[in-house]
């Protein structure tokens, strides 16, 4: 009797347990390796994590999604290592007055669903992307085009007045014109950004579904997306561009930590690693030999004074020059950053056209001169500076080192102002709550020096969070933007950069270097101007 009773209770308990853990542990397990084809070309794998959002060109602005975009879409043009233009889908892009641009497309290109890539594929996609109702992250990239104000009014809460921008006109199947609201000699460069990719008709039927299963016109065709784990693309056989895939496809694998990815690289389960974590930096060149990659690219780290803060309000630029000279860039990049950065010698990063060596010593460590400059400039108010940074990005170590360097050289007290994550850090910048300086970082959108100057230091620039404002600089930039051709544009911005020495809108610290590597089963691995792998070039052994 008692036994039966216990059994009944136990059964009851089991039922509850089963109900609680009722979950399908099945799931399909065919996350194949993709190498079932007998040909020698294999799939290449790389640790690129889950994109933030669906794959839509105008809504992707982070590097994970950017990698997938570059594989699936081929825009009008791309850039070579020296910052020059290489046409992809464009046959030619021409202008006479830098205001109206005529784009001719190559013949016979098609999307992966077989529909042709036409002028309409571009114009319709850009109009959709710029429209305020579609709330695309990169909509502002279309702001130069005439009629942008009508589809994307600047005033909060305003409704769009038109569905299309008046500046975009389809001439015939393979030709369209772009009219800008103002002449921009370098406009062609902007078109290299992945936001300007064409979209097939299928996109407009259901953009959200498209983001999950994108159809592009690029070297690779979308295969599958196993969320938070893997995205797989395969080489598109009929691709006509110069960057045709030399491998069978790419697997973008998400890893929970950089260290885990590195271990998979060592054990041969991963072909390419996009970043070596701090714990492995000391030994990765030893581990990988000549398969280790250490190469600079077009990105810079700066300290940006908040010109509204108590510390830097109405400051004499000499003080900022002094602070700059108090930072021992050589030692910090070598020791704390383990040689993963190159000391900066200007505001423009390598890889961008117009990068120059400035004739100045303000980027060289000199404690005596630093002290003198700060004294001459009237000193730092309160004799103390703060450096705001986010703790989730591995910045704490170098911020401490920079602070120590400043204090040791000049006696100015310096303290890190830690924010728990990037979101909080940005919030403080947006709301003008930076105590004195913040850690700035900039990765080039297109390889021209103007991109590193105007977007950051023009009074009206959106990313000018230090609120630096100087009439002379603004005027010089306006003049440069009105240059006749690209060469004079680049030269004019070189002059702007030289002038910045007198104003110090930010203290350049160092240029980024890509620290990656690859395994024994692949070859021809290299990075492009903004630090991304040229995966289409990678061959398998």
């Amino acid at each position, binding site marked *: 009797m008692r036994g039966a*009773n*216990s059994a009944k*209770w*136990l059964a*009851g*308990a089991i039922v*509850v347990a089963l109900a*609680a*853990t009722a*979950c399908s*542990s099945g*799931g399909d*397990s065919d*996350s194949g390796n993709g190498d079932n084809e007998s040909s020698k070309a294999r799939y290449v794998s790389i640790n690129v994590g889950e*994109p*933030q*959002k669906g794959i839509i060109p105008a809504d992707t*602005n*982070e590097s994970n999604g950017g990698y997938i975009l570059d594989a699936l879409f081929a825009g009008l043009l791309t850039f070579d290592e020296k910052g020059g233009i290489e046409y992809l889908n464009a046959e030619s892009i021409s202008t006479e007055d830098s205001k109206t641009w005529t784009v001719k497309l190559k013949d016979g290109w098609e999307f992966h669903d077989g529909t042709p890539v036409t002028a309409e594929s571009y114009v319709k996609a850009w109009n959709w992307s710029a429209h*305020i109702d579609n*709330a695309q*992250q*990169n*909509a*502002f990239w279309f702001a130069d085009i005439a009629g942008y104000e009508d589809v994307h009014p600047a005033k*909060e*809460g*305003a409704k769009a007045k038109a569905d299309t921008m008046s500046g975009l006109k389809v001439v015939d199947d393979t030709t369209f014109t772009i009219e800008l609201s103002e002449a921009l000699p370098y406009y062609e460069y902007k078109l290299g950004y992945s936001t300007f990719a064409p979209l097939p008709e299928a996109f407009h039927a259901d953009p*959200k579904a498209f983001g999950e299963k994108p159809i592009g016109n690029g070297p690779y065709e979308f295969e599958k997306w*196993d*969320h*938070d*784990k893997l995205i797989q693309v395969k080489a598109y056989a009929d691709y006509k561009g110069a960057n045709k895939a030399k491998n069978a496809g790419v697997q973008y*694998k*998400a*890893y*929970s*930590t950089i260290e*885990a*990815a590195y*271990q*998979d690289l*060592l*054990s041969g*389960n991963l072909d390419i690693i996009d970043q070596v974590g701090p714990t492995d930096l000391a030994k990765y060149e030893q581990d990988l030999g000549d398969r280790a990659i250490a190469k600079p690219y077009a990105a810079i780290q700066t300290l940006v004074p908040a010109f509204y803060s108590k510390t830097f309000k109405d400051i004499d630029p000499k003080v900022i020059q002094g602070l700059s000279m108090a930072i021992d860039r050589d030692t910090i990049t070598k020791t704390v950053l383990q040689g993963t950065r190159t000391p900066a010698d200007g505001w423009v990063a390598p890889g961008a056209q117009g990068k120059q060596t400035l004739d100045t010593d303000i980027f060289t460590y000199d404690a005596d001169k630093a002290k003198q400059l700060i004294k001459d400039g009237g000193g730092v108010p309160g004799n103390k500076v703060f450096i705001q940074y986010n703790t*989730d990005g591995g910045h704490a170590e170098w911020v401490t080192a920079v602070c120590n360097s400043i204090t040791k050289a000049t006696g100015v007290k310096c303290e890190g102002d830690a*924010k*728990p*994550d*990037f*979101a*909080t*850090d*940005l*919030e403080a910048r*947006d709301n003008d709550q930076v105590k004195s300086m913040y850690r700035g*970082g*900039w990765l080039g959108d297109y390889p021209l020096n103007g991109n590193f100057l105007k977007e950051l230091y023009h009074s009206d620039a*959106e*990313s000018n969070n230090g609120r630096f404002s100087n009439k002379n600089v603004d005027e010089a930039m306006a003049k440069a933007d009105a240059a006749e051709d690209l060469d004079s544009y680049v030269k004019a911005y070189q002059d702007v950069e030289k002038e910045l020495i007198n104003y110090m809108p930010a203290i350049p610290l160092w240029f980024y270097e890509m620290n990656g590597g690859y395994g024994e089963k692949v070859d021809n691995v290299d990075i492009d101007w903004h630090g991304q792998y040229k995966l289409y070039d990678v061959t398998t052994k």
Partner: protein
Amino acid sequence: MGHYVARRLLQMIPVFIGSTALVFLMMYALPGDPVRALAGEQYSDPTQIAALKAELGLDKPIWWQYWDYLTGLVQGDFGTQIASRRPVAEVIADAWPVTVQLALFALVFTTVVGVALGIVAGLRPDSFRDRALLGLTLVLVSMPSFVLGRLAQYFFAFQLDLVEPNVSLDENWNELLLPATVLAALSLAYVARLTRTSIAENLRSDYIRTAIAKGLPRRRVIGVHLLRNSMIPVVTFLGTDLGTLMAGAVVTEGIFNIHGIGSLVFDALGHREGATVVGVVSLIVIVYLICSLLVDLLYAVLDPRIRYV
């Protein structure tokens, strides 16, 4: 018993509401705007941010958001991720099975090995093997799981070449054995020690002496009389352990690159994906609640004197 279970299940409702409200408030109290953060260092259009917030209901006061969340939950809607716009239910359903599998493996390992070790040691208190067990468990208890995980990875994957260092995307069950063992290590030590002490104590009790005096075979004395009574504290521990194991998987999943609940919560916290965090935490709370209910019910099986009305 039916009444008892029903009452316990009803009691779960306020606990559940309280805990989710707490997590909800904590997420809300964190500084930083997830929608703004999507734009990163780039320009972000305030109109667009406002529109996205309105669409996701993030512009309402917190109590309103919480009410929306609860009412959605009742209808099986866990909310939507801010960045990807994927339903949170789908995201969790992707990550949940592997963590449950991992935690169950760890639980089985803990139970079988832990109890076995505890019996072996407890039957001969203060012998050499008892001291050896105490030493071993001391090491396990004091070693953080990330150290143990890295060590295991180093020896088994790189030195002995027995396994791959990371769990592959297929998440085969045999790949989960090493991470499960690492995850179980701490609980294993506790279970072994609890069993050992309980057995050693009960060994000296009257009913065991009686059982031996009755001339029962040793196997029956230990297997039924001794073990059944000694298991009560162990079962109590194991019951809450499943929830702990799932929550503790954050570290282990990171080391072995398992795409489960642990890495999901970690990422979601970093990106301020409130709905995802609250969703996962709610599920773990439910597991805790159900496990403790199970433990209470199992008491009656182990000790028939316990009755629920």
